């Protein structure tokens, strides 16, 4: 399904964010990508849909190359890949429906999209997804009126309405509280199973990842250092990925996860105050 060979990305300054990564993700597999901040997780998934331009290597989805495409061909390739973001990345001043329908922009022409005249089949699908994600009746609310969990549900709808073969998920729960995080992960797992989607999920919360995914890949300094089942993720492996730490103590306390949402909430407040 997704086939990555020798993927390398060098940023200005020369350090290799992604360094010779080979990775295959079969249809229907939910794969978690873990690793410390700066290990290259975000860069890797952004190379897949070419939001970031890789320096070397090839990427193919269903046998069709993504690397080397330009203009319209690249946009067609991007339609096959839905993306879900850490801070949701909804267009704040658009409604839920407009945000969801923006996932169809690769399929409709400029004037139709500008006048919001999407094909009825798209609108039907949007309503279906909004209901499925538990947001029934909220389609005309503006995105900035929603809570974090609701926003991420909109983000998921927007990715799925693209009718993708592959989902690229960048820290979907880093801005959410622990309970909402689990709900969002559960929704993702269910939807991927329903549609037989392959998905790469970047995630910091190792325990959460182990709970929901069938395969974990560990990235350190741009290289894959672990690839296996969640159960195989031993203390030694975690040390190899993240470095020395008392892993059992960390696993016992879920409180650590509380820091990230608090930080994100503070950021959001700062945004609003501007």
């Amino acid at each position, binding site marked *: 399904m997704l086939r990555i060979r020798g993927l390398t990305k060098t940023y200005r300054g020369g350090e290799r964010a992604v360094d010779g990564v080979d990775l295959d993700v079969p249809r229907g597999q939910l794969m978690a990508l873990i690793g410390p901040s700066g290990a290259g997780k975000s860069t890797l998934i952004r190379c897949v849909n070419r939001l970031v331009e890789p320096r070397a290597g090839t990427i193919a989805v269903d046998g069709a190359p993504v690397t080397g495409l330009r203009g319209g061909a690249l946009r067609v390739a991007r339609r096959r890949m839905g993306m879900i973001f850490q801070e949701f990345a909804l267009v704040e001043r658009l409604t839920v429906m407009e945000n969801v329908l923006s996932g169809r922009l690769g399929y409709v022409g400029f004037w139709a999209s500008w006048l919001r005249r999407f094909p009825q089949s798209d609108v039907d699908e949007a309503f279906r997804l909004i209901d499925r994600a538990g947001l029934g009746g909220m389609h005309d609310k503006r995105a900035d009126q929603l809570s974090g969990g609701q926003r991420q549900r909109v983000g998921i709808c927007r990715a799925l309405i693209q009718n993708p073969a592959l989902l*690229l998920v960048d820290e979907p729960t880093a801005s959410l509280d622990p309970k909402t995080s689990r709900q969002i992960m559960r929704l993702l797992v269910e939807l991927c199973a329903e549609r037989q989607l392959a998905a790469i999920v970047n995630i910091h919360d190792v325990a959460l990842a182990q709970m929901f995914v069938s395969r974990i890949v560990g990235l350190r300094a741009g290289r894959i250092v672990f690839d296996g089942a969640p159960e195989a993720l031993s203390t030694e492996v975690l040390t190899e990925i993240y470095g020395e730490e008392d892993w059992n103590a960390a696993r016992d306390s879920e409180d650590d996860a509380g820091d990230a949402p608090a930080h994100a909430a503070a950021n959001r407040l700062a945004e609003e105050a501007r």
Partner: protein
Amino acid sequence: MSAAARRWRPPPLIANPWLRLAIYGGGALYLALALGTLQVNWARVAEGLVRGWAFIAAFGNPDFTSRWGEISEGMVESLTMTVVATALGVALSLPVGLGAARNLAPLPVYLVCRGIIAASRSFPEIIVAILFVKMFGFGPLAGMVTLAFATIGFMAKLLAEDLEDIDEAQVEAVRASGASWPQLMTYAVQPQVLPRFIGLAVYRLDINFRESAVIGIVGAGGIGATLNTSFSRYEFGTSAAILLLIIGIVMVAEYTSGIIRKRLQ
């Protein structure tokens, strides 16, 4: 037992105490010397005060009637100039502003557009008006072109700054869906900048109205010309009437633009 209290003061703006003293001292000295060179002719001031008082007194007794024909004609001309100039200037500022946003435009386009903005902003309206009056002759056409020209610089600069401040994550998300460039602009960028842009356009409308009164004095048409005539005829009642009308219209514009901006947020 307690440790010695640790004193704290905010760090000074200029770290070096000698430099600090030199700059503050020099500033104070220059101010004193500058004040010393002012030569005030108190007799002339006293004389002017009387005339000024006559002018202010006229506000209590504004004369709308005796020159009403000229006043209303000037007002209509000014309003026409203002609306046309604002519409034209705002429309032209869109591509210029877009080109002047470093995150959206390639470098050559950026430099050209920043150049246009700099040219438009570096001359005050009155000087541009004098130039256009020479080019197009007396009348509202020169005034309209002047205001449109000034509007481009103002709107394009502020639009470009807003565009450079947009949330890139929203743009990235829409790009990831396979959107084309125009779709990217209308879905991810436009919603982020439109409310403020409309607010600024309404604000510019009332700036243009006020400016139309000023540039009329150099012959660019509108109420300014009427105002200037009334001053030179010492018809302070008429001048006061015109000024009161300008104040009224600006206040209405201010109030309306406030409502519009609130609605858009």
